[in-house]
């Protein structure tokens, strides 16, 4: 098989290889990592016939320029980065055939914050602790444990096999399912395991006041600024395992929402945890954006998770798996 790769001509901003992450390795002190917007990652992968949690490119606010060495089937999902293929507008949330030598570029990010690129067959990088996710702080995973740079050549499979006899491939996500990242909406929060450590005012403020995402926010966590959330006494707990979505509140009362690269243990009281179904929306917010929170019961949050799982099961069934992809159809 000829040597197939994508070449990064422009790096974009913090472009990394991510996947479903390293869930279940935290007991060794290893962060989960993986895609911030798991919904967009899964859709992009399924559209090109990959397993949903396989490796994708994740880019932030500024997209990369990517050259394809051989024919490919690709899908772009996530925030609206106005993708272009050889200068022509290219639809997102849709599988698109690409000729050898084609150049994928992106315009300004007009909605959301993070974009995803999947290629049929996936990026061929060696897994570290069972995952291709890049953890830049630890210097491992993905491509050499770092964000991509101009000149990097990431091995892929030659996409000719995915194109054979299936022309044109235009599998796409039905428009009602495409998330509207531009529209502000409240983030649903399940009151947390240390709810009893907070004063009544803390709850009143959390459910009514806006909280702004500070510039010191990244894949580890979002630092928020707003009315302080007062503790009854101490803000500290004995170190306990923490997970993406948990909202920690240190003694200054300013909440921190933990994200994909968060440390595995923490010593601050957790006032609540973002509903899993709303983490993708949160991943598409950027510094300066305002967040509003709304309480949700664990039962309701789990109903949302089941609905999401059913959606992915239908999408997966519709998309089929390698090596043959069925032609032109719309799903869900």
């Amino acid at each position: 098989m000829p040597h197939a790769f994508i070449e990064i001509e422009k790096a974009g901003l913090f472009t990394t290889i991510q996947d479903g992450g390293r869930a279940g390795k935290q007991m060794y002190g290893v962060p989960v990592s993986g895609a911030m917007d798991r919904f967009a990652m899964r859709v992009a992968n399924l559209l090109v016939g990959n397993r949903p949690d396989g490796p994708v490119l994740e880019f932030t606010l500024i997209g990369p320029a990517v050259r394809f060495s051989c024919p490919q089937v690709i899908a772009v999902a996530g925030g609206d980065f106005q993708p272009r293929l050889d200068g022509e507008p290219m639809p997102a949330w849709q599988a698109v055939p690409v000729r050898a030598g084609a150049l994928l570029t992106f315009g300004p990010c007009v909605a959301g914050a993070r974009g995803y690129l999947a290629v049929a067959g996936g990026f061929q990088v060696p897994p570290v602790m069972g995952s291709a996710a890049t953890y830049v702080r630890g210097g491992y995973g993905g491509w050499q444990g770092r964000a991509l740079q101009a000149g990097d050549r990431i091995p892929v499979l030659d996409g000719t096999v995915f194109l054979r006899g299936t022309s044109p491939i235009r599998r796409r996500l039905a428009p009602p399912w495409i998330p509207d990242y531009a529209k502000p909406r409240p983030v649903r929060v399940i009151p947390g395991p240390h709810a009893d450590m907070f004063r009544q005012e803390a709850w009143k403020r959390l459910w009514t006041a806006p909280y702004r995402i500070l510039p010191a926010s990244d894949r580890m966590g979002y630092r928020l600024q707003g009315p302080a959330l007062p503790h009854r006494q101490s803000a500290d707990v004995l170190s306990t395992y923490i997970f993406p979505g948990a909202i920690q509140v240190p003694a200054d009362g300013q909440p921190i929402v933990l994200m994909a690269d968060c440390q595995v243990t923490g010593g601050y009281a957790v006032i609540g945890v973002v509903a899993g179904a709303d983490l993708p929306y949160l991943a598409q917010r950027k510094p300066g954006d305002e967040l509003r929170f709304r309480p949700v019961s664990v039962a309701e949050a789990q109903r949302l998770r089941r609905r999401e799982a059913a959606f992915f099961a239908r999408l997966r069934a519709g998309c089929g798996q390698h090596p043959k992809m069925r032609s032109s159809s719309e799903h869900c």
Partner: protein
Amino acid sequence: MELFPYGDDVLLLRWKSSAPAPDPAIVEEVDAWARRIRMAGIPGVLHLFPAFDSLAVTYDPVRLSFADLAERIRRLDGPLPPEDAAAVPCFEVPVVYGGKYGPDLPAVARTLGLPEDEVIALHAGKEYKVWMVGFLAGFPYAGALDGRLVLPRKTSPSLSVRAGSVAIAGNLTGIYPLASPGGWHVIGWTPWPIFHLRRDPPALFQAGCRLRFRAIAEDEIDRYQGGPWDKQG
């Protein structure tokens, strides 16, 4: 102990501990509950994360609701079969104490009012249990230290603690897997690499395993550079 939702795919068992330091009795209970839940083999339960006074249980909310999981766990309360001691890994960690390997040993000895030899003897003279792994990849929090070695963290953390440093703070002892800033008192150093990305599992220590420290001389370091990985099979 109480059960709480911790998001929509984690359940947290939380113990009320008043002490600011880990309580060995509570850590034992956490460990016992981890074994109970593991042995129950509840479908949909994914992973267990035991800590000092909490146990996080991750599960698949598509297969198992919080209410059902909480009910299953509550019904597990009862006598626990004794721990199978042979199944628990026990490590004897080689340590060069003092000198450039344990730069804080003199200050620790002074603060505790003990000769340095006595600090070493007390630290190496006891079997510890790993209570939790976290902070840094592979960092074991092990306890409980002999009461005579208990002292608070440094008021000002060191900017860089060398990988392999063996340190104490409160009633805990730990090993830095990588170079890192750190507020614990470094009394020695082990040549063992305790975290390796390409191993499975990547961390040498896990919650529940036991360890002892054994003083070695500087000229013995070479013999231990490979770590225990090969011998442990």
